[in-house]
């Protein structure tokens, strides 16, 4: 068996790293298309067509990162998976219902009569919203270490709003890059609003985070690590301020640099995620279960690692290729 020399600890680190990568890519990629769904205006049909056209070629593959993430959790850390999803059974069910609704609406809307099209559009919007709220709520409860008391619930609700704002923000940035004219103007407004809510959300969640676990507070508020770590929130807020400036200037920039807000949003996601990862490593469920507690059999992990090493770079390569093919402004939604 290849990778025989890797110890269980190293395998644990590799798999938690892969899981992290899958979650981060999911949050960014499905994040923007969920965000576009949440923003869908119920009254303006023209906008809805263009907005959905902008995510058409991507949403399927974006959602696959969630399947990979839950799959990795399932077999690399099976006990964590069952603890996590048994506690969060109801929100997970609601999230799945949301994903079902939006996934099918996307295809039904293009094929049915005009009267029904609006109903599918609405089901796309509310399905997206249900998904983002449920994901945020699950993230919140997860961070508390699967607590279910009233404080944890409050934190989870805050997190639900925060995640929804983050998705809506990156969705708006995506539209700035992909859309033109009126829709783009609308996207600027959405991005500005989203930015404010997101900034408030990041501050709120960060502070609440410090009160949840003693060792996390110790890590972030102690010298010398704390100073080094401060670079993360500082960079994050510099980026958010920069984004505010960019959003002000871009409408008068003749279409230059329309990719900037999306890039900034992407970096903010990466930074927030790394702050989160630094806080909770080596736990796979914060304060409850470490990577090593939950890790499954090393030989099975080695067997899958062979495929992972070969296939994941290929996946990243052809994903990049598809983004290159469909780069630029999105075209009218038409199947061929």
């Amino acid at each position, binding site marked *: 068996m290849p990778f025989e020399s890797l110890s269980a600890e190293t395998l644990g680190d590799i798999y938690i790293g892969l899981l992290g990568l899958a979650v981060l890519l999911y949050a960014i990629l499905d994040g923007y298309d969920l965000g576009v769904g949440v923003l869908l205006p119920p009254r303006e049909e023209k906008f809805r067509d263009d907005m959905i056209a902008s995510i*058409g070629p991507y949403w399927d593959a974006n959602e696959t990162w969630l399947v990979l993430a839950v799959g990795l959790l399932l077999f690399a850390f099976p006990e964590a998976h069952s603890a996590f999803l048994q506690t969060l*059974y109801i929100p997970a069910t609601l999230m*799945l219902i949301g994903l079902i609704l939006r996934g099918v609406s996307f295809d039904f809307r293009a094929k049915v009569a005009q009267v029904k099209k609006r109903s599918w559009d609405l089901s796309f919007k509310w399905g997206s919203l249900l998904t983002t709220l449920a994901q945020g709520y699950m993230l919140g409860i997860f961070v508390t270490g699967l607590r279910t008391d009233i404080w944890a619930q409050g934190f989870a609700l805050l997190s639900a709003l925060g995640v929804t704002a983050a998705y809506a923000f990156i969705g708006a940035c995506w539209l700035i890059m992909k859309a033109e004219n009126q829709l783009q103007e609308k996207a600027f407004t959405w991005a500005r609003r989203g930015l404010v809510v997101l900034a408030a959300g990041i501050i709120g969640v960060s502070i609440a985070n410090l009160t949840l676990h003693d060792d996390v507070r110790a890590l972030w508020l102690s010298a010398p690590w704390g100073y080094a770590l401060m670079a993360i929130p500082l960079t994050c807020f510099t980026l958010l301020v920069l984004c505010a400036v960019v959003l002000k200037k871009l409408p008068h920039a003749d279409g230059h640099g329309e990719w900037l807000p999306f890039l900034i949003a992407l970096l903010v996601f990466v930074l927030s995620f790394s702050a989160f990862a630094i806080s909770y490593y080596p736990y796979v469920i914060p304060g409850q279960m470490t990577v090593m507690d939950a890790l499954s059999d090393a*030989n099975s992990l080695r067997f*899958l690692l062979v495929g992972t090493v070969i296939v994941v770079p290929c996946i990243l390569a052809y994903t990049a290729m598809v983004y290159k093919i469909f780069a630029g402004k999105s075209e009218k939604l038409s199947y061929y």
Partner: protein
Amino acid sequence: MDAFLLSRLQFALNISFHILFPTITMALAWFLFYFKIRSDTTDNPVWMRMYRFWVRVFALTFALGVVSGVTMSFQFGTNWPGFMEKVGNVAGPLLGYEVLTAFFLEATFLGIMLFGIRKVPNWVHTLATLIVAVGTSTSAFWILSLNSWMHTPQGHEVIDGVVFAKDWSQIIFNPSFPYRFVHMMLASGLTASFLIAGLSAYRMLKGDTKEAPKKSLKVATYTAAILIPLQIFAGDMHGLNTLKHQPQKVAAMEGLWDTTEGAPLLLFAIPDEDARENHFELAIPGGASFILTHDLQGEVQGLNDFKGKHPPVAQVFYSFRVMIGVGLLMLLVSWTASFMLWRRGELPLWMKKVLAGMAFSGWIATLAGWYVTEIGRQPYLVTGVLKTADAVTGLPTGNVVFSFTLYAIIYAVLLVSYMATLMLMCRRAVELEEITSEEREKAKASRMSPANT
């Protein structure tokens, strides 16, 4: 009702709903590849017309398969935590390989297939179609390998009740896998063929006189006529393989209680598990022995040899007869229709009606077949290794009632919407214009101009 029964019902609901869509897409992807290749190598624009219609059906079907599949990937952990705890070391990597080698491939290249034709060179679009077809089949390979291992496990060892993998090639290519894989791929081919033939016939019944539905009908009917005898043969081989490894399942399929020499083939009966006998038997003497042992007097093991360890008899017994019944009907219809097409070049009205009525017949046979094999494995989840009752969740019953109700409502709505939308797409296609002579010229020109290759 307890969480055990509800979890089983919920999983049965989910997986039954899910399998409808991959059963279509697996083979439909290869049909699309065939249409695209014909379009690339001939001057006839009708192939592209066919591609365009069926690629939209494919997109819708694929989306339904994806969303119901995502739901299932969560339920392994939520409703069957014992499954991953006990056999996760085998099941995990196989599922992982499915995600890595198939899901991303299909989902990514589907984007090019649906929206990319004006963005990429034509050969890249054809290649994307091929890759999607390969992806769907690869996905079937991994999931059927895992499913087959659950029926005929090997290549593992059990330490303290937990399964550890020892030999991966033995696990992947376990004894029932080749048979199940071929049987399922052929089932997919038949389901897609009858869907294409049925919806094309429906279009013609609604007054569509264009070339596209005629051609689709012909391709699909001939394909079905070729696949159905292969399927009957493959099914027979699969049955013999099951007899070797899971004789209790075959005994339930045949409704045979006592081990018998010269066991009869029951055409109809009402199995009574309490009395351990059948009522109202209609049988061919020696038939089951002949099919299973190729000897009219051969010995077939009965259910009483497996008391307490055999599946519920009635469900397996009836499902098996539904599957066989639909299969024989497919044989009759596809051969008759093919004969008519071959002799007269077209079908009479009544035959179009029959085909339209059988558009979704593949679903019934496929579901019935899966019920035979999955219920036939009970009371085990993994034969001889893990009982279904030992894998179930400790969730409160109320939670499972809640999720079950939601899924049931949504799936019912989606199933009706799906079928109604396909019919609507057919009716709308009637109003499309026939291929014009300009279009033909263009297709011809595009063959010659290097700019478009």
